[in-house]
C-alpha cells in the first residue's frame, strides 16, 4: 500500500480552529468546488478581494495537485473564528513526494505542467507546509 503524500493534519496542531467543511477530491470540478467554498467564506467575513484571490488560487493549486498527480484525496477547511484565520488541509492518496524542496522549485514538474503550482501556492499562502510519506499535510 503506497504511503500518502499528505495525511490529515493532527487536530492538536490546529489550535482553536474548528472544522468548517470537508470535501472529496476526485475530478477537476472538485477543485473548483473547494476554492469557491473558501472564497465564499472569506468574502462573507470581510477579507480583501486580493487576499481572497490569493488564497483561493493557492487552494486551487494544491487541490488540483492532489487530483492530477495523486489520484484524488480529501480536503478540509478549518476556521479559527476569533483569530479570523482560515486553514485548509489537503490529504491525497499519491505515492508521496520524494524531494519536497525539488517539488517546490519553480520550473520543476513531474506531470507535464508548468511547474509553478506548489511553489506558487507556497508564495500565495501565509503559512504553507507539506508533510509527505512519513506523515503530514500541506496547510495554508
Amino acid at each position, binding site marked *: 500500500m503506497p504511503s500518502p503524500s499528505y495525511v490529515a493534519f493532527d487536530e492538536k496542531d490546529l489550535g482553536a480552529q474548528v472544522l468548517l467543511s470537508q470535501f472529496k477530491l476526485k475530478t477537476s470540478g472538485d477543485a473548483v468546488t473547494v476554492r469557491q467554498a473558501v472564497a465564499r467564506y472569506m468574502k462573507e467575513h470581510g477579507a480583501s478581494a486580493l487576499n481572497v484571490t*490569493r488564497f483561493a488560487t493557492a487552494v486551487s493549486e494544491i487541490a488540483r495537485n492532489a487530483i492530477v498527480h495523486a489520484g484524488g484525496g480529501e480536503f478540509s477547511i478549518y476556521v479559527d473564528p476569533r483569530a479570523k484565520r482560515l486553514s485548509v488541509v489537503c490529504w491525497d492518496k499519491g505515492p508521496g513526494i520524494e524531494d519536497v524542496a525539488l517539488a517546490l522549485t519553480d520550473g520543476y514538474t513531474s506531470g507535464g505542467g508548468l511547474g509553478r503550482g506548489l511553489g506558487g501556492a507556497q508564495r500565495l499562502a501565509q503559512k504553507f507546509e507539506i508533510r509527505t510519506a512519513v506523515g503530514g499535510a500541506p496547510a495554508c
Partner: protein
Amino acid sequence: MAGVTSINLVEHALLVSIQDDITDTEILELQDRLSNKISENRIDGVILDISALEIVDTFVGRVIAQLAGISRLLAADTYVVGMRPTVAVTLVELGMYLPETRTALSLTHALTQLRRL
C-alpha cells in the same frame, strides 16, 4: 452553474468567453471548436474574455497559453481581456507568464489593436 464557454464572431475576431468553472473536458472541446472556427472563417484575432474568472491558477494559465499558441499557429493574434486586477497581481506572484498573449483592458481596446494589424 454549468459552464458553457461561448465563441462569438465580432468583426474579424473570435470572442471566447471562458467560464469560471470550466472543466478539463470542456477545455479540450473548446480547443477543438476554436481551432476549427479560426481556419473556417479566416480569423485575424482571438479575444479571450476572462472577466468571469475569479482566479487564474497555473492550470487555467496553461489553458490560456495553449489557446493562444494554437491561434498563433493558425495565424490569429490573441488578446486576453477582462483580467481582474487581483488576478493580475496573483499571476505575477505565482510566477506565471503568458508569452503568446497580449492583454487589452476591454473588448473595444482589443478590437482597436486588432484593426491596426
